[in-house]
């Protein structure tokens, strides 16, 4: 009992003396405090920056954090408006600030024992919202966007008036041959639009190609099977195929049951399609759209069923499986180009042209950058250019 008492006494003594010692040495305040409206924001915030308290480093009772204080005038009472960790040399004050009102700021440096010291007052700063993001990165993206949009729109307009040249893409012939083969063999064609939803560029390309395939199928009087993954894509596919049969002048040949919804879950969908392949033994399989892990299993099963397989996707990894397991693969942008080539719509042809212009600019900028990097120390102009490009 006596021991316990002694211990309590001792520890109390130490606690008191410890707090006594440290209370005597509050940390040094932060210096060079500045307050500025946060640039390129929606407003209601102010950026503070400061030189950290040197006492962050001291071994005993170091600075553990900062508190931001705000007031409406330099002599009215300050209230807390946020905090920052030790090591920070700036923070954004935003709690409760309003636009177009001047504020004054102070920063409190807190030590481990809660003793603190305050900086000088900074301000006034007036938070406002900006109407344009002026960070260099954003400006470059804007320039790039305006340029690309201009290229595409100009070419779409042009394509509406005259015929623009797009080189023949090897895959186009493969598509026609695939349809021909099915007709000769008297076997159906299987068309898969992938797993993407109707908003994906790849799925939209898949609709175009489907339209062409369906029209040919209608002309040659063979059969087209389209199992769908997404309910919306399914109803669009129905429209596309029905329309193509109508265009081919054979609306009566359209069989509603051949375009159907399966399920919206990757592996069950794949399992069902595999089953269709093994049962129907289609002459040609098309895989156009967004594909994921199911790509290889579809392609392997299709091979097993003896089908000719034509694929196109914008998923990088799945391309490698399609290249390995299919007879013909449209790689990324080739798929968009094929869809433009087949649809002959000026909007699509013009887009491809505009994209080509974009590539020319991309390649020239890269080349220019490479050359300037090579001559870095010799020609000041290039160095400057590179700096501009890299937004340094």
């Amino acid at each position: 009992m006596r021991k316990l008492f002694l211990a309590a006494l001792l520890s109390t003594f130490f606690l008191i003396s410890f707090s006594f010692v440290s209370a005597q040495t509050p940390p040094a305040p932060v210096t060079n405090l500045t307050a500025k409206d946060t640039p390129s924001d929606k407003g209601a915030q102010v950026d503070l920056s400061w030189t950290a308290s040197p006492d962050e480093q001291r071994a005993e009772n170091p600075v553990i954090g900062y508190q931001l204080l705000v007031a409406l005038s330099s002599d009215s009472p300050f209230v807390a408006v946020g905090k920052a960790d030790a090591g920070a040399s700036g923070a954004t004050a935003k709690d409760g600030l309003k636009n177009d009102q001047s504020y004054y700021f102070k920063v409190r440096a807190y030590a481990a024992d809660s003793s603190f010291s305050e900086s000088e007052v900074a301000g006034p700063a007036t938070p406002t919202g900006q109407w344009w993001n002026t960070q260099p990165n954003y400006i470059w993206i804007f320039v790039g966007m305006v340029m690309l949009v201009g290229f595409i729109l100009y070419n779409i307009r042009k394509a509406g008036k005259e015929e623009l040249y797009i080189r023949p893409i090897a895959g186009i012939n493969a598509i026609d041959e695939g349809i021909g083969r099915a007709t000769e063999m008297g076997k159906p064609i299987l068309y898969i639009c992938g797993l993407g939803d109707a908003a994906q560029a790849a799925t939209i390309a898949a609709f175009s190609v489907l339209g062409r395939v369906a029209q040919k199928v209608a002309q040659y009087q063979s059969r087209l099977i389209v199992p769908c993954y997404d309910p919306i894509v399914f109803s669009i596919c129905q429209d596309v195929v029905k329309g193509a049969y109508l265009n081919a002048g054979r609306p009566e040949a359209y069989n509603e049951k051949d375009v159907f919804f399966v399920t919206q879950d990757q592996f069950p969908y794949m399992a069902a399609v595999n089953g269709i392949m093994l049962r129907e033994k289609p002459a040609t399989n098309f895989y156009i759209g967004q594909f994921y892990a199911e790509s290889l299993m579809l392609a392997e099963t299709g091979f097993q069923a003896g089908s000719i397989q034509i694929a196109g996707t914008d998923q990088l990894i799945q391309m490698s499986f399609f290249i390995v397991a299919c007879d013909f693969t449209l790689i990324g942008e080739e798929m968009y180009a094929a869809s433009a080539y087949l649809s002959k719509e000026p909007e699509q042809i013009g887009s491809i042209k505009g994209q080509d212009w974009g590539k020319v600019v991309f390649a020239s900028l890269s080349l220019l950058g490479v050359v300037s990097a090579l001559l870095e120390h010799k020609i000041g102009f290039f160095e400057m250019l590179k700096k501009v490009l890299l937004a340094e």
Partner: protein
Amino acid sequence: MRREIPLIITSFVGFLFVIRFFIPHEPFASMENTASSWIQVIKAFAIWLGILNLLKISGEKIYKKDKGWGFAAIVIASFLAISIAGFFFPFWETRTPGDSFIEHARKFQYPGTSFDWFYTYVYTPLSSTMFATLAFFIASAAFRAFRARSFQATLLLLAGFIVMLGSVPVGNALFSWLPQGWQVSDIADWIKNYPQVAGQRAIQIGIALGIISTSLRLILGVERSHLGGEG
């Protein structure tokens, strides 16, 4: 009504998301936030749509006694089993004191609930195994396609071969006589860090341009295939 309003909505929302990127000022930030919340809800309903569509088709199959209607019945039965476990468990499992009914219901996938049982012992083995069968298919695809039939095919083969060897420790062990810094795994790393990255960048730029122009056409309303043909 059927085509114009969707076109206007697409343009408006698309334009909002583009312009919001450049304009930090209100009200664009709040508008984007609100639009985002709505999209979260719509996407959730879109997933439900797929499920309801599946139930509808299975139901029709059973009703018409189509070929394979028995399997359709199993689909519906297993759907009901897990859904009941998810929605109705609050009625038979004891509630933690202090929880309201809804708080209790939100614990539907806690360890030990019947929903978690379905997840762990039915859903997980089925989905994992389905995916795992790819191990077999990738081997057969490699055997069939990795043949040096032409220069291009040889490049494909060699890159695949080296990367495969370099991915596993045994690759280095087999060729341990190679000098330091030129081990199989080093060469494999080089291939995947440089030539592969270069090839991918080229592909990616093309795809990015394609997506940008498709998006632009959608926002401007000149791409309408997603609306379908009728109406």
